[in-house]
């Protein structure tokens, strides 16, 4: 799709004309991230993170493929080959640190991307599919990151594998056979390491495939924007190239400065010293935590300390262990129904006073608390804090958000993006009230409906 006023690709040379007839790949690129993709003119820097996430994926694939050239997924030598990469391979230290910190930066970027989605309700119609695919990508990323962390075969790798596969043992009846099947043994060993390596190599390419679907789905309605008002006319948009290639390029520069500062000056700041001790099945590290990007979900997992029972009978309905696992997975799977929980037709948090209060003073502090508690030891007061935060987390999405979307009185929306930017819009003044489609513009896509106020 594109808006009617999108620039058309016009091959200039005989060669590009020939290519365009046989395989119009340059045309695809032109329409996807070139001048042929009209984008709202008012995007702020929160809209940088999609491109940055794509960059991170490429970074991880390139450094990862290189590391795989020097790594051996065998319990006897895996730890040593990582040290071999660090000491013997030319620039091996840099490539490994770039890959390890690249994972952290990928998650930073993705969390900001998701944050943007929450605040500006990017998940709402007509963009539900983009959101759903994004949640799929996030789940794949978590699986990939977890399995990658097992590969160095240090203490944290080993016990991480033990604990995470242990989650599956909580499932009634099939749980323990399932865990043994996943590991290919009774504890993590060569079989587990090998399959994790195989899948860790495969999944990034699966992610890349879903990313293509994600971008494809994005190009059908076009990018959202900070006002949440849909594009109505040509003056609402600018071509992606050069306007957003330049803006994303600037963001990429800032990203690279921060990223290289970590790689070269604080390469182990986000890691755990225990992972430089080779895996030992007979000794668990005293304080075992996952990587920082899993902390909020780890806190939800640990928040469930009591079984669900029928009161006064002592009959256990659901064990605490299973409750924790359900809640942890549920906290993300919940996002799949988010487009249908938040029914407010207004997208941007800027025009939703009540939503904004609960967002900044409810959801964000809750996530901060969960993040902190996930990395803290499993003792008071962190357990109670995790329980309160977990309760609010589910309450926010399942109760507060649907109620807000019913009772909230949104602020008046600008007529168009142009008006939001320039303060005035010379285009149709007449159909302001009632209809919000902006009159007979023809090219306005489905779902461009906005409430009048």
């Amino acid at each position, binding site marked *: 799709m594109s808006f009617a006023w999108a620039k058309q690709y016009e091959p200039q040379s005989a060669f590009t004309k020939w290519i365009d007839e046989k395989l119009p790949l340059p045309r695809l690129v032109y329409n996807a991230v070139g001048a042929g993709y009209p984008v709202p003119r008012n995007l702020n820097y929160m809209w940088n993170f999609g491109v940055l996430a794509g960059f991170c994926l490429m970074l991880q694939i390139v450094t990862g493929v290189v590391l795989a050239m020097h790594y051996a997924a065998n319990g006897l030598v895996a730890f040593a080959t990582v040290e071999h990469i660090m000491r013997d391979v030319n*620039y091996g230290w840099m*490539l490994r640190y770039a890959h390890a910190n690249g994972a952290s930066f990928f998650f930073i970027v993705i969390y900001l991307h998701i944050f943007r989605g929450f605040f500006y309700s990017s998940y709402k119609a007509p963009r539900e599919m983009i959101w759903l695919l994004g949640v799929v990508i996030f789940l794949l990323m978590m699986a990939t990151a977890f399995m990658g962390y097992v590969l160095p075969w240090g203490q944290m790798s080993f016990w991480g594998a033990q604990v995470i596969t242990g989650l599956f043992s909580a499932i009634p009846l099939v749980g323990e056979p399932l865990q043994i099947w996943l590991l290919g043994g009774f504890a993590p060993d060569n079989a587990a390491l090998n399959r994790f390596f195989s899948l860790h190599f495969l999944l990034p390419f699966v992610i890349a495939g879903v990313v293509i679907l994600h971008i494809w789905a994005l190009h059908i309605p076009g990018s959202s924007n900070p006002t949440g008002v849909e594009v109505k006319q040509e003056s609402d948009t600018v071509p992606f190239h050069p306007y957003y290639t330049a803006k994303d390029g600037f963001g990429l520069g800032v990203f690279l400065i921060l990223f290289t500062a970590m790689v070269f000056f604080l390469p182990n700041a986000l890691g755990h010293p225990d992972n430089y001790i080779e895996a030992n099945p007979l000794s668990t590290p005293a304080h075992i935590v996952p990587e920082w990007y899993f902390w909020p979900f780890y806190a939800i997992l640990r928040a469930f300390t009591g079984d669900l029972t029928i009161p006064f009978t002592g009959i256990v309905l659901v064990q605490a262990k299973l409750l924790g696992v359900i809640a942890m997975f549920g906290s993300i799977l919940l996002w799949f129904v988010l487009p249908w929980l938040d029914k407010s037709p207004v997208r941007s948090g800027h025009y939703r006073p009540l939503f904004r209060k609960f967002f900044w003073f409810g959801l964000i502090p809750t996530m901060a608390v969960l993040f902190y508690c996930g990395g803290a030891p499993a003792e008071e007061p962190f357990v109670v804090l995790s329980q309160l935060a977990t309760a609010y987390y589910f309450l926010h999405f399942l109760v507060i958000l649907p109620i807000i979307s019913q009772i909230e009185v949104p602020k008046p929306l600008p007529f168009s993006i142009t008006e939001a930017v320039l303060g005035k819009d010379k285009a149709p003044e007449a159909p302001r009230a009632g209809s919000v489609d902006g009159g007979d513009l023809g090219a306005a896509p489905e779902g461009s409906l906005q409430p009048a106020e």
Partner: protein
Amino acid sequence: MATDTAATTEVSEDGVRRRDWIHIAALGTAGVGGASVLFPLISQMAPSADVLAASTTEVDVSAIQPGQSIKATFRKQPLFVKRLTADEIAKAKADDASDMRDPAKLADRTKAGHEDVLVTMGVCTHLGCVPLGAAEGENKGEFGGYFCPCHGSHYDVAGRIRKGPAPKNLVVPEYEFTSDTVIRVG
């Protein structure tokens, strides 16, 4: 676009725009950055430090009897060390002047004072097979040195190519005698 950008977009008489500068600067910076990232990515494929560290080999040649060869390993490739008999030395010297594909004198292929010790790589210069002739009872070829069974290259007692498809003599690696009985290769 507003008129204040005219200065940057206006094309001067010789076809130069002021904006060209930022394009050149941006692409130049990105190019240098890209190249400096590319270098480690290419360099990592080169032999790593542990491989390079294993690039010298010491061989004790004292136990080798005249007419006998031993096989050692140098850079994970076979290394032939052979002690020539007096007859073989004489034969090799007699052949020095004959017509060869890769002419070389025996004296050039051994160290002064150790003319009886011939050190060569056990790698056929044709396509890299290991020639026969270093072990007891193996086919030594028509010239009594080494014979490569893969494609039929015949080397003489001094490891020089005499017949068959190989283009060069068996390579004599860099080595030196660290004592009368020990050589260090590499």
